[in-house]
């Protein structure tokens, strides 16, 4: 009992005293709706993304754990360099074993551009700067983005390359790409798989 007189039956909002509960609860409700709408998608997306299936690997060099929705695809080689890959729709992540490499991930990025991308794509355009990337194990790689036209299929693709050099000086290039306009929808998965990849003797 608060001792307050009850509101008149015909009273409008103006005439009713708005108590603390009626001031705070709806406001908290609005705040909850704003937070859930703004951030809920990231939480749901994170819940939908989990390691799925066995990792694909080149033993002793690199191992990639596919996330939900990604499937291992047939391994191959580019030049003399073997790769393993996982795909989802038009999204592909290839982990290329570059072999012994002593010059660090920056130079490896240049080599990938000149020796792999230039041979595979017409109208190749790459980002002007390299971006440092931290792997889950603490090692540092380098990343750049590219767009081009696949010489084999004639379709436009966009992607990003992440390079790493293991402690035993093995170079690895992660080449993630998809059809033009779709990279944004796989980029998050690509980066998550690259960050979690194991590079070096432990792979």
């Amino acid at each position, binding site marked *: 009992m608060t001792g307050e007189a009850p509101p008149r039956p015909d009273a409008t909002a103006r005439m009713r005293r708005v108590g603390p509960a009626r001031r705070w609860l*709806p406001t908290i409700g*609005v705040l909850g*709706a704003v937070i859930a709408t703004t951030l*809920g998608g990231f939480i749901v997306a994170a819940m*939908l993304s989990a390691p799925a299936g066995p990792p694909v690997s080149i033993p002793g060099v690199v191992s990639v754990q596919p996330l939900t929705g990604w499937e291992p695809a047939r391994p191959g080689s580019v030049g003399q360099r073997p790769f393993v890959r996982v795909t989802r729709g038009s999204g592909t992540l290839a982990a290329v074993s570059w072999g012994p490499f002593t010059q660090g991930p920056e130079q490896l990025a240049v080599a990938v551009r000149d020796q792999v991308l230039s041979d595979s794509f017409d109208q190749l355009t790459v980002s002007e700067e390299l971006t440092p990337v931290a792997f889950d194990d603490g090692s540092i790689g380098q990343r750049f983005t590219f767009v081009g036209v696949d010489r084999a299929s004639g379709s436009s693709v966009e992607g990003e390359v992440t390079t790493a050099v293991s402690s035993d000086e093995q170079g690895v290039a992660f080449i993630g790409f998809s059809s033009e306009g*779709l990279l*944004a929808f796989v980029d998050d*998965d690509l980066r998550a798989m690259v960050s979690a990849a194991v590079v070096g003797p432990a792979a």
Partner: protein
Amino acid sequence: MSALGARPGRRLHHTRFLQPRQPAFWLYVLTVGLTGIVAVAEQSLYRNISPSGWALSWFLLVLYGAPVAVVVYLLDLYEREPLPLLGAAFIWGSVAATTLSAIGNAGWGLAIARIGGPEFAARWTAALTAPFVEEILKGCGVVLIYLIARDEVDDVMDGFVYGAICGLGFAIVEDVFYFMAVFGGQPSEVLQGFWLRVVASGLYGHVLYTGLVGMAVGVVVSHRATEPLRHRMWVAIGLCSLAVFAHLLWNSPLLAFYPSEPWSLGDVLSVVLITGGKGLPLLAFVAIAVALARRRERRWLRGALVGEVGLDGISADELHLLESPTRRRAARRAMRRRAGTRAATLLHRLQREQVNLAMVASRVGDAHDPALTRQRAYCRSLRDALGAIPAAAPAGSEPDVTDG
């Protein structure tokens, strides 16, 4: 002016926006403040990309937005909403809702990509995220405005006005984004974007969607005494669902019939037909809903004032004029011709205060309530002042004014 009676002490329906005792006010300020930093940075980026394109974007969008805002403002026949609150609704739509929606759309887009894969996400993300994310976030702005100033949202039309203004703010800033970041940002590209998004589509978008959401808020918070909560909630859910569905349909790839670029003159014109086909049904629905809401307002006005006829506040002839905006305007024009601008202005004030009389009458529930007595006396003093002006006949005796 000294001949007029003192205006009743407390202004009706002019609640201030600054309500530091309301938690909703602080949530509004905090959200707009934080998102405003991002919004300003974004506009600065666009300006750096192409100063001329950015300036042209804003110039064109002000040309579009100003008349839309005026039309929405004037739609509320009897009780124009306070400009500070309308400004707050606009700012929420243009600053907070746009910034938060960009984040929300990205997050839910990611979830859709994870569920359906990149190809599905590329086709459907815009249709499956934006309608829900954007309508909720814009609607939260309307709810906050209501929580800040509960007195001001007391009818369906009020909700529509706040919602539409919030949607207009959203549409303008979103259009700047599209002109600069999607169409390219150069003046010729801005003009192309303006044609597609404003000339061809400007009547159908966020103003209508959020207007419907605002109506839903108005339905829930008004007519509590006459309609049960369950009924009001169902109507509100229907209106919100329609807004989301219309938005979804607009963004749907199933209705993306736009010609491929480069466009010929015929293609440019066909875009207007295509967008009209997609948007006109909703526009028609909203027009009908607004007309019904106005009719409801008119019934409310008559119901509130019919008991006052013959007392000091209003005569039967004045009520007949007051019920029709067309008759009211015609009466003022006739008064201006006959007795000058001052008399017409005075008649305008009398009409406005008679609408306020209806509000007081509908709220106090007692014919002898002091507030009601004061308002009647105020109306009478205005009428007396009008009668004192040479050639200004009583407002109710306007000749041959037809209802439009």
